[in-house]
């Protein structure tokens, strides 16, 4: 709504003299020179730091033609990496979704002491170095770690296998769904739920019929970001993966490996898949944001 306000207030350069003097004197507008300078700076900055790296990925990926690109993707190792990545992402998104919903419910619908602290703990993985995220699981499950000997006795492989990679990824993507939901649900308050309960709905009915439909875009938004990060995680996975070809290499790891094997096209081909995923995520996110806004009643 304020976007439209800005829209209205931004001078449209219409020719009449009154409008012109309005444009000159709009108390919320900068002089044209400043305006142009700011826009130029912003575009230049974003182009250099964001657009160009993205372009590089695609240029390199398609540098030797589409055939080379496709054959790079047809490689069984690429497939195995894609499968693993999808599997890991599915598991982390799934668990973090359940957790995120539970955490958001507990935090936003009830009052209890230590809320900020709890939110901080949930946020923590966000700013923990991915390397440390991997390291903690090595310390926990490694052969020399706390649980290592016990795991080995029971023949359980966690590190350097799917569970370890999934755990590290879950850790890294832990806050995403909860973070997307908490502010949204905080803003929505508890009145609709109270209304539902007083109309005779059970807890589950209230959740599925009232809460969930209201936050569905937020949920999707969190899931998208969680998924993007889960598929793209490098540092943490690198520490716990073991780099077994065709087995424990995720797509980002394969990017590095292929890069190190002078297979630039293949490397950038996988990278371009990930970049594409990122772009799709962003497009979906942009659409969702509009939906989330649309869901919010502005008028009461």
């Amino acid at each position, binding site marked *: 709504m304020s976007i439209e306000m800005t829209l209205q207030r931004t001078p449209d350069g219409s020719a009449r003299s009154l409008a012109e003097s309005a444009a000159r004197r709009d108390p919320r507008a900068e002089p044209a020179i400043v305006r142009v300078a700011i826009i130029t700076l912003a575009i230049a900055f974003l182009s250099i730091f964001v657009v160009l790296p993205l372009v590089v990925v695609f240029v390199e990926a398609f540098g030797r033609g589409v055939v080379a690109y496709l054959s790079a993707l047809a490689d069984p190792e690429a497939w195995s990496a894609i499968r693993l990545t999808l599997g890991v992402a599915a598991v982390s998104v799934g668990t973090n979704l359940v957790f995120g919903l539970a955490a958001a419910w507990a935090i936003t619908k009830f009052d209890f002491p230590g809320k900020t602290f709890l939110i901080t703990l949930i946020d923590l993985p966000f700013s923990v170095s991915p390397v440390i995220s991997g390291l903690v699981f090595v310390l926990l499950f490694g052969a020399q770690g706390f649980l290592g000997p016990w795991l080995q006795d029971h023949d359980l492989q966690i590190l350097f296998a799917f569970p370890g990679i999934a755990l590290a990824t879950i850790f890294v993507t832990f806050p995403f769904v909860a973070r997307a939901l908490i502010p949204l649900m905080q803003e929505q308050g508890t009145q*609709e739920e*109270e*209304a*539902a309960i007083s*109309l*005779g709905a059970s807890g589950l*009915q209230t959740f599925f019929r009232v809460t969930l*439909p*209201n936050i569905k875009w937020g949920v999707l938004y969190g899931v998208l970001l969680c998924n993007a990060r889960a598929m793209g995680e490098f540092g943490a996975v690198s520490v716990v993966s073991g780099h077994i070809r065709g087995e424990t290499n995720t797509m980002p790891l394969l990017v590095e490996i292929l890069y190190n094997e002078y297979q630039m096209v293949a490397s950038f081909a996988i990278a371009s898949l990930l970049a594409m995923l990122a772009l799709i995520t962003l497009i979906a996110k942009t659409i969702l944001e509009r939906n989330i806004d649309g869901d919010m009643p502005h008028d*009461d």
Partner: protein
Amino acid sequence: MTIEARGVVKSFGAFKALDGVDLKVANGELLALLGPSGSGKTTLLRIIAGLEWPDAGEILFDGENALDRGARERHVGFVFQHYALFRHMNVFENVAFGLRVQPRRIRKTEAQIRARVKELLDLVQLDWLADRYPSQLSGGQRQRIALARALAIEPRILLLDEPFGALDAKVRKELRQWLRTLHHSINVTSIFVTHDQEEALEVAHRVVVMDKGRIEQVGSPSDVYDSPATAFVHGFIGESIMLPVEVTGGAVHLNGRPLDIAVEGGAAGASTLFVRRHDMLIGPADSGTLHGAVTHVRSFGPVQRAEIALTEGSTIEIDAPRDRELRIGDRVGLKPRHYRIFAGG
């Protein structure tokens, strides 16, 4: 159904929101809870609805303890100040919600639900809005849909938290009469919260005046208006002139000068004289017991409102009939027709 609250106490942290509230609501009554912001009106309503639990005290529905039942089981229709309509459901589904979530064995068939919702939408005169979403409704329409939704479950009690609080003055006035008529036709024991005295007095059978978590007075609209029980009620309801007086030796003194009015109530010492604006009769300078000069006059409508600087020091506003025109500078004499004296400055 009757409602009874006994010694209800509720604190938030160190703050006492309700401080021993006793209240009885008769079957089919329409009761207004009136009080300034923060006086505990919403809290009391939420406790009756089962959305909040008291720290002490009892709530009885038809003499039975209600506190061991949750909001879900109390069958109370609650209308929230900001409506709390389900944003993602259209009007029809909003109203149908309470019917759809009933336990399967007593749930109505789809056809029955449709019929009932239709009936309710007719009742609130908004059947043509069935397919709209809440965001496409005006405030007054939302309010009425919220009411229809609350009525759908055939509540034994209807609780309305500032039903018109979020509406603009014009719409509020229109809905007052509508609510009165509606209550007449459904005849469910109802409590509604408001901080607008005019609304309370005009709509309700009885009015409960609250302040600081306590009930100050319960009575019919004319009771609380004409015979306020406490200084607070007198000051809060209607527009009153308040003068600081001293009651000594059976006489009322204003600024040391005795007034020609009888001591009323048990007041003694520093007290306050309360007079309704229209109960302050105005006459020539040599009449009455208070004297002063007119400093400002506005005249429109049935009365003229005059600001009068008393020789005793205060400035008061009175409402006089328009039969005799007042002018700035006129010296006048005043005498209260009805008045109350309450102890305390």
